[in-house]
């Protein structure tokens, strides 16, 4: 406490020097007056009293000097003086200050933003106890595609008993979150839910933000259905309502009481809004008639026992799966274990992109520092006379270096402040632009840790940018410069440094711009993917029927058909169909294995899993899916008539290579399974309806022949040049069937934007980086060439005196610029060739060595470099040979 008080007093006296001095004088004056008054009161004459008082006081000036000496803090004072001087000189050279501060602001701002993103997503610990010891397990076929297959409930229970590598094992519903619509009171909320076993949360060791989390007691048949919600859901959907624990969410007719809220930063599996316990509420799957313990399917989450390695745990699970083979249907033979740690599962697939972005930003920061260093170097060579005078007046080299370092520190601080402000704006923009699939996106913020990192980055930038030129500027024989009065030619090593720096900058810019170009092309190819159906003039309306309102299947089918016919009757509507799931709902669709008529068990095991669609007759017409062979469904395909199916081409090729599939028989599940055989009546192409990035094989069944849930969402195709307002569609539905609630509606084009959100985000990010990097490179080329021209003034002046024209001199300088830029481009292309393969996993439809991109970018960078060099080259042409010869 006392040290702080004392320090504050010292600082105050330092900063308010004149005020402190005045106070000192006033106090001493007051003292003299009081003493004089006392002496007068004791009988002396005023004049005599004053004299005596002054004698008694002592020599006031010496005391004042003593006090002033006490107040000095030499280092701080010197620093303060240097800072003020730096500010003054920067204010004089406005353009330099703006460019330098701007450059640093860009570099520091970009670095801060990237760090906040990386920190929020990857570096921050999940709110799970020892997350690195938690693993996620599933199985995949040994042969065939790299698929993600679930583990059955029976297997989960068996493995839990027998495992030694895992101290605890829980299950989470297969493939993560499913989009459903839950009712909160009267409001329909689209939420992503998942089902977990009772020991899931205890295993993870998460501390709830409110209430409690699911417990083993909640996961029992007949237990009260409860649920816990994510922090984001609590904030966004419920407005952080403090009475959240009393509310309920209804799903499929069952009321789930909200008993807790998760802390921020946890939404495993992907972006789950609500977790439900398995036994009270797991929905029936297609194979509901089969053994329930085979029907409930999970990914496993396990905590690895202390002392066990990840590899050993995986080996144990592998052995377990092989042991269980004998007890499985032939469908599930030959499985191998797949195991990843929890953090890897959460952000593993985005970590490549993030590291790429970090590398790009580091390059950017380096370039910014190098640019500023270059600019300071130029300034240094201009100021040699001033520095020489300082040196002559007694400043040692260390003192001059300290002063130059202070200048770069001031620049960096201004740049850093501006950069942090920029970063704050950008982080907010990212928060709104970031795709919903970005893991941990709610944790991206400019918090204390990030600001501290920004400070460190700033100081580092100041050091790097300032040290090099400071050391170089202060060197050399100053007496020569004092006499000569003009900038001394740089030494040999120094002469190589500047062009090397420029080459480096051009190369780096090329690298980053190429990466951005690749991303742009990748995005465009994704946007132009053939969806397999006609995405124009298509409207998608998702609805939901609160459970309990209509139970009988027949009534639901009638409801669906009535809605379809009413919508079809609207003017401007061509065809309408019902669809089971909205587009791009990759998980939560119905997936099943299939077997063709003549396939063996081994062939069945190698078959890919297909996407099952339950559709009405107008489906193919509405979606514009062409029937390649055979026919579409008709009204004749209903209960009681022959079971039929329409399959996509890849299924046909798999089951009967080279043959016509029409008339052949096919079924879901293994050849010897309980499913019924369907006759193939039609063949279609593949579509990307389920997942934009992978075209999936589709297996179509007619609604009326299918015993599962009745699809109640609709797709409406409008006639060319017809406009059907969404409000009318809503109106028709709510008039006829008010119990049917519309959850979302929009055109198919709008929905297409969703799966592209991630790649678009990456592309925007890299394009921004690329622009900034290119800008910096241009500034760098300009600066370096300006300096070079200044250095070569004598030489160029002599050339002109000897007869060279201005144009010739200009072309000499431009030639130098082009040479350096060309070398830079070559280095850059080589670098890009070598490193862009790291981005392969992020690019679709374009190779990492795409010639068009490389060529276009190289041309762009060359042109930019030449443009940057144009002004200095012109200035070179205007050198006055007479003035140069005279030695000015």
């Amino acid at each position, binding site marked *: *406490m*006392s*040290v*702080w*008080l*004392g*320090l504050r*007093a*010292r600082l105050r*006296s330092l900063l308010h020097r004149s005020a402190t001095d005045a*106070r*000192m004088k*006033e*106090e*001493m004056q*007051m*003292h003299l007056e*009081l*003493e004089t008054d*006392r002496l007068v009161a004791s009988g002396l004459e005023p004049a005599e009293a004053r004299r005596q008082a002054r004698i*008694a*006081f*002592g*020599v*006031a000036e*010496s*005391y004042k000097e*003593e*006090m002033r000496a*006490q*107040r000095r803090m030499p280092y701080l004072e010197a620093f303060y003086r240097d800072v003020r001087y730096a500010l003054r000189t920067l204010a004089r050279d406005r353009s330099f200050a703006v460019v330098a501060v701007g450059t640093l602001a860009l570099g520091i701002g970009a670095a801060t933003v990237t760090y906040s993103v990386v920190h929020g997503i990857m570096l921050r610990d999940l709110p799970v106890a020892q997350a690195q010891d938690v693993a996620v397990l599933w199985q995949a076929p040994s042969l065939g595609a790299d698929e993600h297959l679930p583990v059955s409930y029976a297997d989960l229970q068996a493995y839990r008993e027998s495992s030694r590598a895992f101290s605890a094992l829980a299950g989470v519903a297969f493939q993560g979150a499913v989009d459903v619509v839950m009712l909160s009171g009267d409001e329909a909320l689209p939420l992503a839910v998942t089902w977990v076993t009772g020991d899931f949360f205890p295993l993870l060791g998460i501390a709830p933000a409110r209430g409690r989390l699911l417990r083993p007691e909640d996961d029992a048949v007949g237990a009260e259905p409860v649920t816990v919600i994510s922090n984001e859901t609590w904030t966004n959907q419920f407005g952080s309502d403090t009475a959240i624990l009393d509310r309920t969410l209804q799903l499929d007719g069952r009321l789930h009481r909200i008993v807790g809220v998760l802390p921020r930063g946890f939404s495993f599996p992907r972006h789950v809004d609500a977790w439900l316990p398995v036994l009270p509420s797991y929905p029936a799957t297609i194979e509901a008639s089969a053994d329930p313990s085979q029907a409930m399917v999970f990914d496993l989450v396990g905590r690895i026992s202390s002392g066990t390695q990840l590899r050993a745990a995986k080996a144990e699970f592998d052995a377990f799966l092989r042991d269980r083979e004998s007890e499985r249907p032939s469908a599930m033979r030959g499985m191998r274990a797949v195991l990843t740690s929890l953090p890897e599962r959460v952000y593993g697939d985005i970590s490549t992109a993030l590291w790429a972005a970090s590398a790009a930003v580091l390059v950017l920061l380096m370039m910014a520092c190098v640019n500023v260093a270059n600019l300071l170097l130029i300034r240094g060579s201009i100021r040699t006379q001033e520095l020489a005078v300082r040196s002559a007046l007694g400043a040692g080299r260390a003192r001059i270096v300290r002063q130059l370092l202070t200048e770069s520190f001031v620049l960096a601080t201004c740049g850093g402040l501006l950069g942090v402000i920029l970063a704050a704006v950008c982080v907010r923009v990212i928060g709104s632009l970031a795709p919903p699939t970005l893991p941990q996106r709610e944790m991206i913020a400019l918090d204390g840790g990030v600001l501290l990192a920004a400070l460190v980055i700033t100081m580092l930038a100041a050091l790097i940018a300032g040290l090099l030129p400071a050391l170089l500027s202060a060197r050399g024989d100053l007496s020569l410069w004092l006499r000569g009065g003009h900038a001394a030619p740089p030494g040999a090593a120094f002469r190589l440094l500047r062009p090397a720096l420029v080459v480096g900058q051009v190369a780096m810019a090329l690298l980053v711009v190429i990466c951005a170009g690749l991303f742009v092309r990748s995005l465009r190819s994704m946007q132009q993917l053939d969806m397999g159906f006609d995405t124009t003039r298509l409207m998608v309306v998702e609805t939901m029927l609160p459970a309990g309102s209509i139970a009988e299947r027949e009534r639901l089918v009638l409801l669906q058909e009535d809605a379809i016919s009413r919508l079809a009757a609207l003017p401007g509507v061509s065809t309408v169909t019902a669809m089971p799931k909205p587009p791009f709902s990759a998980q939560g669709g119905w997936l099943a294995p299939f077997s063709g008529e003549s396939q063996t068990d081994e062939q069945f095991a190698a078959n890919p899993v297909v996407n099952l669609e339950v559709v009405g007759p107008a489906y193919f017409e509405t979606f514009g899916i062409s029937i390649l062979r055979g026919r579409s469904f008709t009204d004749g395909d209903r209960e009681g008539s022959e079971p039929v199916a329409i399959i996509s081409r890849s299924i046909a090729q798999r089951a009967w290579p080279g043959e016509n599939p029409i008339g052949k028989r096919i079924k879901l599940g293994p050849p010897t399974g309980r499913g019924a055989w369907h006759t193939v009546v039609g063949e279609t192409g593949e579509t990307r309806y389920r997942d934009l990035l992978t075209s999936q094989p589709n297996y179509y069944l007619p609604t009326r022949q299918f015993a599962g849930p009745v699809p109640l969402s609709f797709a409406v195709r409008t006639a060319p040049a017809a406009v059907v307002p969404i409000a009318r569609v809503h109106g028709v539905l709510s008039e006829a069937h008010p119990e049917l609630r519309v959850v979302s509606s929009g055109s198919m084009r709008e929905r297409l934007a969703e799966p592209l959100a991630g790649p678009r985000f990456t592309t925007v990010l890299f394009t921004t980086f690329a622009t900034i990097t290119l800008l910096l490179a241009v500034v760098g080329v300009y600066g370096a060439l300006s300096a070079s021209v200044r250095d070569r003034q004598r030489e160029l002046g002599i050339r002109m005196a000897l007869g060279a024209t201005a144009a010739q001199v200009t072309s000499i300088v431009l030639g130098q610029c082009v040479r350096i830029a060309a070398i830079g481009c070559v280095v850059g292309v080589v670098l890009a060739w070598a490193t862009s393969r790291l981005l392969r996993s992020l690019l679709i439809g374009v190779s990492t060595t795409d010639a068009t991109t490389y060529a276009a970018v190289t041309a762009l960078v060359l042109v930019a470099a030449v443009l940057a060099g144009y002004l200095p080259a012109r200035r070179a042409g205007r050198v006055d040979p007479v003035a140069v010869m005279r030695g000015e």
Partner: protein
Amino acid sequence: MSPQNHADARGSLDLLVLKTLSLAPLHGWGIGQRLEQLSAGALEVSQGSLYPALQRLEHGGAITSEWRVTDNNRRARYYSITAAGRRALATETASWKRFASAMDIVLRAT
């Protein structure tokens, strides 16, 4: 003004000022007067030397200061002792006493 009664030696002056201020807050002139009072005239302080001592103590955090208005309606800077100052006073007094008795022992030796 006999030399041996001069209390200008830095350490002892600080101690005296602290002691004075521990009794009541005062301004510079008042401290000088009180010191003379307390020592019944035995100690004389060159009045100006108080001010460097006061600044020193303030920079060390042992005392704080603020502007106040005196009875005569004039502005004066009043100093008061802090908690840390009191602690320092206690320590320094103890060490001074130890020093004095040590000197005493040596000087009494024959």
